[in-house]
């Protein structure tokens, strides 16, 4: 009777064992690595909008404060996308007849709001409140990044739960004075953090129901 398996199958068997072990370890490790990449978190992907609104021009060029347009950030859970009527005071003179502004003019005259596309999307089971963060010294930049440098706005933070929880466990280093809340490129001062936490009564809130209500 000839041999059941040719000689080279020994090598194949060993290679298979190694491959199986590598797969068993490699696949979970690769998956865990992948969910941390911008591919999975959708970071740094510019989101196309109905109007080519350039934050660089408005923030860096015109030095308009974030809250001029996103005025409900301090008072509401929702930072607010401004109605097109907010554009009118300036744009009734500046660039009034530009094609870029055509959808804005249409919206103002018809009273129908523009459909902006969401950039930072939290899952429905997460409760998030802008006002409490803004009033306790968490700057816009801390979550939204250098919007002053964005031609098209993209999601700057990974928005993973660990990203939220890391700050909630130790908020002090991320705090800034309320006067600098909208500052872009703020340089944090190490001694200031704990003082601000005390001043604004910031506590570490990590119970489940802080965010999942």
């Amino acid at each position, binding site marked *: 009777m000839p041999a*059941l*398996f040719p000689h080279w199958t020994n090598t194949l068997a060993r290679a298979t064992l190694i491959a199986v072990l590598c797969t068993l370890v490699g696949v979970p490790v690769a998956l*865990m690595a992948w*969910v941390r990449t911008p591919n999975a978190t959708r970071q740094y992907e510019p989101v196309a909008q109905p109007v080519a609104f350039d934050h660089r021009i408005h923030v860096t060029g015109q030095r308009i404060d974030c809250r001029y347009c996103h005025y409900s950030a301090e008072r509401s859970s929702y930072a607010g996308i401004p109605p097109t009527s907010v554009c009118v005071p300036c744009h009734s003179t500046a660039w009034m007849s530009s094609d870029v502004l055509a959808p804005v003019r249409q919206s103002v005259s018809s009273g129908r709001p523009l459909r902006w596309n969401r950039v930072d999307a939290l899952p429905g089971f997460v409760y998030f409140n802008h006002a409490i963060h803004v009033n306790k010294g968490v700057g816009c930049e801390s979550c939204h990044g250098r919007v002053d440098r964005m031609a098209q706005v993209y999601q700057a933070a990974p928005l*993973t*739960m660990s990203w939220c*929880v*890391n700050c909630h466990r130790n908020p002090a280093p991320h705090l800034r004075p309320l006067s600098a809340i909208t500052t872009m490129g703020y340089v944090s001062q190490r001694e200031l953090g704990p003082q601000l936490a005390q001043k604004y009564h910031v506590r570490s809130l990590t119970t489940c129901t802080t965010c999942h209500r």
Partner: protein
Amino acid sequence: MSAVARPAPSLALAEGDDWPVMRGAPNDAAITDMVLAPLWHTRRIWWILFAISALGTLLLLATVAYTVTVGIGTWGNNIPVAWAFAITSFVWWIGIGHAGTFISAFLLLLNQRWRGSINRVAEAMTIFALVNAALFPLLHLGRPWFFYWLIPYPATMNVWPNFKSALPWDVAAVTTYFTVSLLFWYLGLVPDLASARDSAPSRLRRRVYGLFAMGWRGSGFQWQRFNVAYVLLAALATPLVISVHSVVSLDFSIAQLPGWHSTIFPPYFVVGAIYSGLAMVLVLLLPLRRAFRLYDIVTEAHLNAIAKLMLAMGLMLAYSYVIETFMSWYSANAAERYTYLASRPFGPYAVVYWIMTGLNVLSPQLFWSRRLRTNGTALFLASIVILAGMWMERFVIIVTSLNRDFLTSSWHIYIPTWVDWGILAGSFGLFGMLFLLFLKFVPSVAMSEVKELRIEMRKTPEQEPLRA
């Protein structure tokens, strides 16, 4: 030479037991032919049983698909009875598995050589029971595709599973148990797979069995390593017989609920697990013995031993019932007393409670009789009855405790839906199908151990020469 020296086995199980553990001293070739015959020739009864169990499996697939797409609102459980059929069946199936490990590992370490002809069936039963058991809590998660959240791994959520909860303990206990059982089963199979390789009728089958036999040649060196590894794995598996169901029982006993909050639970659950598992071994073994004419290697000695074990377990279980009920009265706690002395015996599920007590306590008493201990029909019927009784026991523990707890305003009756019944019935189908596939493709008796036993049974080589 051998690192694991075994004393000469005592072939009589106890004083006065005069059944041999092997009859007619069949030679090695006869044993091989007898055990491997079902692998090469499929009988019509196999196809009929396979078709029935495949239908059951389809029912399981359908009800599981319905549950996953629609949600677990298709089940009858609702607050306060959040755990009902799913957890009942989980505990029941996992308990079934325990007898397999008990027979294969515990009895190996205790040098009970009669286990050799039934341990393969018992181990296969363990693995298939665990597959079924795992299904229920996974479905009960509601979103089973997130099952991996139960495993402690560095998640982007930056939180770990709640280690204070018994549920991650369950995951650890059950996965460990499954891994060790599978390794133990496979290791024991290797020499027999090599036998199958050597006697397979076609080249393809020789190759397939050869692949799984992993180059086993039966050399002295290989046997020596094999025995060391086998006993080491047995030593690993043995504490699991105790620990796994103890952990499962903690799901209940660490809660404050009357009916669950009891320190007797771990031993009580382990005893019940082995009890129901032995019953399942008999339910599988008795028809198998008859169908494959295994009377020479599965003798009255085996049936007698299992029946005695069942009687012992049944008595310990009855003791647990008594103590549990006594302690509720002794605690002088109104809620405890209500659950054990009013709700269970006279409440809405009183029928289940009394049937369960009757079946579990009375049926093993048959085995005081030496004649009934070796009577296949009596053993089979008693085993079915015990399996049903043990399922009801878990149902009583879970549902009667939950449906009437401290707050009378939240009392609620649990009624299973057709999906609950469908998944339960379907899990029998899956179990049957896996077991039939096992019978078709895997040597169902540990031939190598039976052959070893045969040689050890010879009094002296001169008196009874070896006929190989």
